[in-house]
């Protein structure tokens, strides 16, 4: 029985709109990762996908639709909905069980086909209460941002700095969707959507097909010289109604705690070399950085101002440009992981961090104001 699991390689598509059909686009990315690793479709042990149905795609049981495009013909497999990092975790389980020595993990999203994420997330509401008041993700985020500002004195400019940093990083990422050279003024002057949230502080709607090949220790060593090892994982669910929650005490803390315990991490700020955080709203990068222990509660504003999360800082956050630069809603968690893997492998091209990258954190979140969080730790 294998006791370690590695990510052998990754492939991803750019976030901008593609004229390709959904199925061809997915086939392309699966083919790419298989070709890169020299593994044939027949050799793949099983396929775990991450996708969402109808709402993010317009087709129910999307796993039926894309099964063969995802290399799944006559294969064992399964699918995770919600947070795509769960597909990675499930892949890890499959290998640790000893039943499979390779797992293809795919994240699937063709955002350009969908209505706005605000429309889709309106259907997350219960029909009796929150739907009648018109709740969607952006309202939940704005309520959370205001609470964050009011409670800790976080400034709007500090939140806006996250956009400047991340879109700046995205200029060097060929897979990023938004590529704009911007400054703080641009963000502060952008259109108010749900005060205090401004348009440029909200993630776009992007495409994203991503594929990762996982392998058992023995198999990984055959397939690559630079395996990236699974180190830890945690996830946690919060209660449903916004009004029952403290919007500033998120389950991210619990998710991170589990992941750190598994990975043996005691001082995350010191031990983690790079973090990719799911920040569909700019301020959330600050709040989530607090949650994973990069700084204390209420210190997110100071963290961004200190420069620590810049490419050359002591804890670079979102060198890919993050979700603000590329938001394939359904697969964005796996995009975070893919970037961390490339950084650790030293294959991040122009955006490769200058320092040694041995341990990385990938974070994903779904649901209103971060109802669910997942944290994955991988390393050399």
């Amino acid at each position: 029985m294998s006791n370690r699991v590695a990510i052998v390689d990754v492939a991803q598509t750019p976030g901008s709109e593609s004229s390709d059909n959904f199925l061809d686009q997915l086939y392309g990315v699966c083919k790419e990762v298989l070709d890169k690793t020299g593994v044939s479709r027949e050799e793949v042990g099983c396929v775990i996908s991450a996708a969402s149905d109808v709402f993010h795609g317009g087709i129910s049981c999307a796993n039926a639709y894309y099964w063969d495009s995802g290399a799944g013909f006559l294969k064992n497999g399964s699918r995770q909905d919600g947070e795509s990092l769960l597909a990675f975790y499930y892949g890890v389980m499959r290998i640790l069980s000893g039943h499979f020595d390779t797992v293809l993990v795919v994240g699937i999203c063709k955002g350009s086909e969908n209505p706005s994420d605000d429309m889709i997330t309106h259907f997350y509401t219960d029909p009796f209460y929150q739907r009648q008041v018109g709740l969607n993700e952006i309202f939940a985020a704005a309520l959370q941002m205001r609470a964050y500002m009011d409670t800790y004195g976080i400034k709007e400019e500090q939140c806006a700095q996250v956009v400047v940093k991340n879109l700046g990083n995205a200029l060097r990422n060929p897979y990023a969707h938004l590529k704009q050279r911007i400054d703080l003024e641009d963000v502060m002057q952008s259109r108010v959507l749900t005060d205090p949230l401004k348009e440029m502080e909200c993630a776009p709607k992007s495409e994203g097909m991503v594929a990762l090949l996982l392998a058992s220790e023995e198999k990984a060593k055959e397939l690559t010289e630079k395996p990236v090892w699974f180190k830890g994982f945690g996830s946690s669910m919060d209660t449903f109604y916004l009004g029952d929650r403290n919007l500033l005490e998120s389950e991210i803390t619990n998710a991170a705690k589990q992941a750190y315990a598994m990975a043996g991490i005691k001082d995350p700020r010191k031990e983690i070399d790079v973090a990719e955080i799911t920040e569909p709203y700019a301020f959330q990068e600050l709040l989530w950085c607090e949650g994973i222990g990069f700084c204390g509660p209420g210190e997110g504003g100071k963290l961004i101002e200190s420069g620590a999360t810049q490419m050359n800082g002591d804890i670079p956050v979102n060198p890919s440009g993050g979700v603000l630069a590329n938001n394939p809603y359904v697969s964005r968690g796996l995009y975070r992981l893919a970037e961390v893997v490339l950084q650790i492998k030293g294959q991040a091209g122009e955006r490769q961090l200058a320092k040694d990258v041995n341990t990385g954190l990938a974070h994903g979140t779904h649901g209103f104001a971060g109802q669910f969080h997942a944290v994955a730790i991988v390393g050399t």
Partner: protein
Amino acid sequence: MGKHFSTFRHDVWLPYKFAVGQVFKAFYDGLKEEKILGNQCQSCGKIFVPPRSFCPDCNVDMGDYTEVSQEGEIVTWTLAKEAFFGSPLDPPFITALIRLDGVSCDLLHLVGGFDLSDVTGVRQRIKKNRRVRAVWNDEKQGHLLDIKYFEPL
């Protein structure tokens, strides 16, 4: 680049009949009489609005309905400047979490009754802990929006 091979417009259009259950039924009936009903957990003593069929913390069945205060404080709020799918009103409008007096959770609802056209003006007027009171619509439908909004005192 765009989809130069053309696209296919496709609407998913489906009908629903949601089972309301006795608890939301009681809540809606209360709204029709200009009452905001909650209920209390027999185990932890928390009072929830809207009332619940079970306590989200203790998972026990809830006690009888009690009418709660129609006044409370703003916990957090946002001013919508754009129209969104499913929005209850045309923009601008304020969505807020409101802690009604004596209740153990926040109610998601609207704040209004004054000029919302200017963000700066609204920010001066609406703050955390600002006290508000329910304003009712004349016509009641057994719907959350039978409360027109909460207006600042």
